[in-house]
């Protein structure tokens, strides 16, 4: 039985474990000291400790990952997203160690991984881009100079980065020095590389990206687009497939450009070409993510494909199993559930999950990295689950997502579920009047509970605090429970008028 090592943690490690199971491959997990009890470890056939909690001492240490593969006899390696997934040097080391790298070639990663190099490549392929620096900034002055030439605001980005980490908006030349220092510091700590560069910041654009898939026969196809404009702190929080702003003609053009961009680096495996879509319908290449995306499930649900098993098949040298370009059906929405407290400025909320009720039922897919009783460590990204809702149209998908969020329950830590419940009631979100800046001007206001809910909660808290309250639990045996007490005659909830 082939063994595949997953150089990652959390929900994406579990996503890859599931793909392994579906293909009859034995999954190998790695774990830091903070993750010994993590779900991705317990779902794997093999598990290897790789060091202390900080990622730079465990999940980012190439030698430890290669040793873990050797120890367990793994012959394939999937990097997931984040961590070393877009590190060409790592991919090269994996290949040199004789392992099958589940991803694009190190050269493709290197070309697309450097934002400056990638611009040169796609420009040659005729792909439109936003004005930006083509080499990393050597100084704050260089960035200020670029801003004076092209206008503010600018966006500072880590050259080796992705996923919004280490990105900063600079609205004037005065802000440049402090932002440059911060961005470099963050780039160094996330990507072990402090190179940063600047580009023009297009106002109120949408973020729309195209999923591509290439195999070793040279075939490259596009599998539709995703709408990812709802971002907070430059981090996507809600994604949709398709984009309600993209019609068939625009989709065909974006897909063609995305395939051209992928071809410019002879792309093999699953990848994503990100575009800024301006209000006037023009779109600009942003970057190509040379890995699986967090939001890949919305594409999977709409197009009926399994992108991760395709990646593994392609890595084994097989042609992709999609004989014809898959056709879309319906609409899917994903909410990224974070361990953070929306009522306290989205402060991280690590800790033990006492109870976890995940949504289920028609149209709902959940990819979760934790289960009830697990501890969310403070050392990593706070995303604990992805809720995905599919519907025949966007309206049905929205209604099902609201249902999924309402039905969920997390006790012990706070999550972004209440934030999403509010967000999905916003008329602009419902009507798809959004841009990447939408959430900058949107603040979460905790919903004041209706009076019956408030009264019931106060009574419950009082009962919980009273002696003996804890003694009454549902019957343990599978027998008839105790009945409700004497019924009150009042005609309203708990005696309150509605």
């Amino acid at each position: 039985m082939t063994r595949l090592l997953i150089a990652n943690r959390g929900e994406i490690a579990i996503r890859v474990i599931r793909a392994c199971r579906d293909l009859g491959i034995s999954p190998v997990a790695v774990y830091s000291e903070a993750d010994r009890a993590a779900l991705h470890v317990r779902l794997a056939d093999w598990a290897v400790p790789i060091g202390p909690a900080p990622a730079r001492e465990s999940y980012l240490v190439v030698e430890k990952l290669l040793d873990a593969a050797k120890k367990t006899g793994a012959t394939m390696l999937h990097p997931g997203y984040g961590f070393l997934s877009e590190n060409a040097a790592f991919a090269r080391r994996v290949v040199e160690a004789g392992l099958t790298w589940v991803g694009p070639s190190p050269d493709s990663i290197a070309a697309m991984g450097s934002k400056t190099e990638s611009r040169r490549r796609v420009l040659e392929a005729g792909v439109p881009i936003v004005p930006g620096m083509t080499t990393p900034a050597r100084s704050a002055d260089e960035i200020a100079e670029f801003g004076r030439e092209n206008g503010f605001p600018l966006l500072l980005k880590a050259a080796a980065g992705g996923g919004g980490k280490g990105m900063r908006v600079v609205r004037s030349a005065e802000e440049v020095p402090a932002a440059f220092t911060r961005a470099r510091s963050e780039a160094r700590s996330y990507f072990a590389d402090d190179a940063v560069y600047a580009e023009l910041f297009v106002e109120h654009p949408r973020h729309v990206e195209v999923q591509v898939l290439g195999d070793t026969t040279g075939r490259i196809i596009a599998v539709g687009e995703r709408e990812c404009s709802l971002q907070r702190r430059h981090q996507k929080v809600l994604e949709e497939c398709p984009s309600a702003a993209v019609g068939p003609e625009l989709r065909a053009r974006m897909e063609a450009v995305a395939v051209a961009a992928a071809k410019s680096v002879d792309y093999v495996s699953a990848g994503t070409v990100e575009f800024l879509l301006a209000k006037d319908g023009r779109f600009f290449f942003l970057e190509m993510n040379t890995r699986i995306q967090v939001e890949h499930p919305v594409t999977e649900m709409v197009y009926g494909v399994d992108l991760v098993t395709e990646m593994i098949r392609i890595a084994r040298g097989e042609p992709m199993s999609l004989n014809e370009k898959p056709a879309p059906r319906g609409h899917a929405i994903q909410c990224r559930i974070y361990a953070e407290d929306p009522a306290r400025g989205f402060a991280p909320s690590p800790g033990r999950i006492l109870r976890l009720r995940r949504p289920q039922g028609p149209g709902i897919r959940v990819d979760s990295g934790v289960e009830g009783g697990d501890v969310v460590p403070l050392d990593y990204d706070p995303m604990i689950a992805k809720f995905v809702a599919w519907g025949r149209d966007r309206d049905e998908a929205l209604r099902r997502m609201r249902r999924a969020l309402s039905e969920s329950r997390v006790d012990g830590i706070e999550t972004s579920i209440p934030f999403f419940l509010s967000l999905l009631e916003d008329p602009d979100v419902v009507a798809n009047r959004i841009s990447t800046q939408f959430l900058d001007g949107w603040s979460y206001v905790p919903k004041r509970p209706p009076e019956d809910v408030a009264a019931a909660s106060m009574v419950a808290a009082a009962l919980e605090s009273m002696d003996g309250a804890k003694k009454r639990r549902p019957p343990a045996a599978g027998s008839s429970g105790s009945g409700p007490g004497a019924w009150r005659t009042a005609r309203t909830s708990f005696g309150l008028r509605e």
Partner: protein
Amino acid sequence: MKFRTRFADDKAGRALDVTAGAPSFEATLEGVPLSGDALAVRDGVWSLVGPDGRQIEVSVAFKNDGSVRAYAAGCLFGFELLDELTARALAATGGRSTRRVAHAAAAMPGRVLRVLVAPGEKVTQGQPILVLEAMKMENEVKSPRDGVVASVEAAAGQAVSAGDVLVRFEAGGE
């Protein structure tokens, strides 16, 4: 048993008197009689069914600062729940809000990335005094008051827990 409950934006608070507990509770909230069936489903999770059939599943948790965290019907909210004696004692001393905070504490667990102030330094309310990192996010800790830093209790690289004192202020000062 008598309680006082209060939302953060609700100055007066309300009197809650529970005269019968689970399973058939009876209570009054500011004089309004409440009753129904209460079932403790799990520790901290209750299902309440009113006389008219209204069902509400409530999660309650008691936080370190004495407040209650509640989640019910899609609403996440907090309130104070004090037994009446404690409430009266607090009211007599003017409540907790009259005391001047003597320190800045960590609101969440994390690692100290940078310390931005030193002992003897004057700070104003809202000024960033420290940067904490948790879950790959940098979070600025802001000064809760105007004052003078007496001591810094955390160093860069150090792991801190929620509630740990980070910076102490000199007494009085402004």
